[in-house]
């Protein structure tokens, strides 16, 4: 049951809240030049909805069965039959309830983001002058707004299947472990469709903001304009759009219509295209730059390389015949961890190093940061890369004891190696923790713009006080005018009207 909780907590309580909740709330107003979000009260509401959700999840640990028993995908009938697994009682119900709360909270949050970005940009901040971070958040908010209600509806039906014994997802009166049969007539596959309709976009929800932030960091530390800003924007929009019609690739072998599987396969292949464009553009951004290998930059480069691995294994899996073989094996686990941990978390880490001075007015220790990056990067690959090999051998996921299958015994040493690496990876995060807490108090003071970055938030005080800005920001250009031939310095902030005004900026700051 631990993997259910690991997956749920990581996805819904760590990555999405940090990316969308934390950074979104903090950075969006700063980057577009607003005092605050459009609806601070709605934000509070959303925040307070998170707590009952979190409470439900934690509480479900202490219910019989120690946590929900149906995996984070919660496939019925396993998740609906009341006694099909040890954690199928109240633990599963609480899990469902917690997820509904999350759904409502995220919906409120995403409404807030969209409204803020549409309506509260500073004068001159056109849509195509927004930093990629804001674009990432904006597209994420749209995806959440569209996809989450579907999951919420599905969860409500599942809850009613569990509590009211209806039968939306039960095919007929089936009894597991002598439970009383519930009513039938439903469709187990329906849940899978509705679930993946949300949960596939959820992957992009988790990675798009990180993509945006990495774009910003790469451009800033390459001292070079972001290569192909508009194609980048179009490609995240395309990822979002296509992301909605590829959910079926999670269900190739689930027994759904095989012809439909083919169409899902094509759309899945297509989604690799915008992702590829992004990767090439990131590389193009670095090419010909003047790279400052600071900690955030290292994390960004790590993000790009991990994303390449994750993306390529994604193409491999998108081919249904190959998917037959690696479905539900460690190959999938490797893929998703490369994308979610390798990419998202590395991006988030880099972002924390990057924006820490803005948040707390102090710099983080760069040497410790580099050490942290190095260890994380090495152990990350040590942990997740072997999973590909395991998966190729057919090592099944979600097994409490895979060595029930005799063929898997030879893979034991590799698993032990992965475990050591995972422990190492955990230990490396302690360095980060020490650095984070320590720098809050003893780090060197940061001025407004420690990285000589262009975007709007670096014009505000560090840390920004109430109302964010102490002047009326007016935007004159896009956020990536680094090394502009007209300027003496290698950056050209968005608020500066003319190249000749650059000196005044230094005075103002």
């Amino acid at each position: 049951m631990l993997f259910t909780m690991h997956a749920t907590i990581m996805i819904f309580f760590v990555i999405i809240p940090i990316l969308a909740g934390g950074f979104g709330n903090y950075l969006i107003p700063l980057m577009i030049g607003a005092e605050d979000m459009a609806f601070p009260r709605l934000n509070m509401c959303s925040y307070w909805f998170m707590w009952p959700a979190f409470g439900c999840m934690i509480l479900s640990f202490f219910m019989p069965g120690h946590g929900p028993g149906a995996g984070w995908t919660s496939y019925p009938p396993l998740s609906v039959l009341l006694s099909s697994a040890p954690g199928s009682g109240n633990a599963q119900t609480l899990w469902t309830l917690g997820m509904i709360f999350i759904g409502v909270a995220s919906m409120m949050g995403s409404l807030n983001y969209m409204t803020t970005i549409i309506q509260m940009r500073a004068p001159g901040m056109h849509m195509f002058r927004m930093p990629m971070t804001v674009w990432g958040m904006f597209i994420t908010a749209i995806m959440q707004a569209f996809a989450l209600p579907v999951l919420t509806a599905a969860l409500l039906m599942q809850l009613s299947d569990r509590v009211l014994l209806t039968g939306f997802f039960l095919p007929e009166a089936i009894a597991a472990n002598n439970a009383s049969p519930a009513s039938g007539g439903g469709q187990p596959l329906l849940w899978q469709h509705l679930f993946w309709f949300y949960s596939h976009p959820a992957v992009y929800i988790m990675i798009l903001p990180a993509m945006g932030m990495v774009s910003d960091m790469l451009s800033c530390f390459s001292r070079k304009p972001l290569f192909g800003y508009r194609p980048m924007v179009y490609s995240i929009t395309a990822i979002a759009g296509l992301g909605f019609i590829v959910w079926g690739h999670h269900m190739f072998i689930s027994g759904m219509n095989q012809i439909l599987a083919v169409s899902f396969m094509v759309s899945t292949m297509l989604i690799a295209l915008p992702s590829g464009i992004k990767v090439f553009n990131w590389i193009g951004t670095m090419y010909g730059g003047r790279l400052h290998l600071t900690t955030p930059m290292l994390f960004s480069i790590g993000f790009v390389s991990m994303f390449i691995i994750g993306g390529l294994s994604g193409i491999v899996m998108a081919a249904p015949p190959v998917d037959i073989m690696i479905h539900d094996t460690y190959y999938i686990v490797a893929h998703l961890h490369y994308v979610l941990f390798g990419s998202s978390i590395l991006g988030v880490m880099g972002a924390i190093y990057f924006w820490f001075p803005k948040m707390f007015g102090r710099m983080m220790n760069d040497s410790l940061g580099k050490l942290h990056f190095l260890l994380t990067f090495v152990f990350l690959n040590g942990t997740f890369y072997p999973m590909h090999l395991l998966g190729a051998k057919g090592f099944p996921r979600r097994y409490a004891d895979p060595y029930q299958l005799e063929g898997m015994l030879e893979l034991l040493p590799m698993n032990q190696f992965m475990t050591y690496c995972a422990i190492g990876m955990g230990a490396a995060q302690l360095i980060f923790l020490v650095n984070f807490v320590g720098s809050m108090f003893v780090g060197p003071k940061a001025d407004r713009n420690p990285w000589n970055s262009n975007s709007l938030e670096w014009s505000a005080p560090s840390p920004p006080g109430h109302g964010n800005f102490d002047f009326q920001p007016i935007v004159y250009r896009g956020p990536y005018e680094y090394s502009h031939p007209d300027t003496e310095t290698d950056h050209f902030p968005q608020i500066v009207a003319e190249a000749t005004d650059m000196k005044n900026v230094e005075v103002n700051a």
Partner: protein
Amino acid sequence: MNETGQPTHKKNSPFIFIIVFLMLCALTGLSFWIGRSHLMEDKFTGWSAMMAVSVAKAMLVVLFFMHLWWERPWKYVLTLPAIIMGALLVLLLVPDIGFRTERYSQERNSSAAESRELTLDSVNSEDVHFER
């Protein structure tokens, strides 16, 4: 409303709302009539007719009651994708699980009206005793 600026709003008079309202009532009557008319004999025709009426009603409400007729079409930017996405979801759901009765277990099929000739697995004579 003035400060949020909707200058085009002034054109609409109460009459148009009354007309729309009457049309809505008439359309409700129409769909009610379709439900009982011979159109329903062919299910596909009947259902499409009924859905067409519903879409017409929804459009009336959206355009006039929700003022979209007088406003710039910016709202479509997000509601239209939602509608498309929703339609897509349903469209992709239906071929997959809506029409796969051939894959149902025999037990389930035996409850269908047309296939009642199928054997009844569930009836097991040992379970029945004659009492009284």
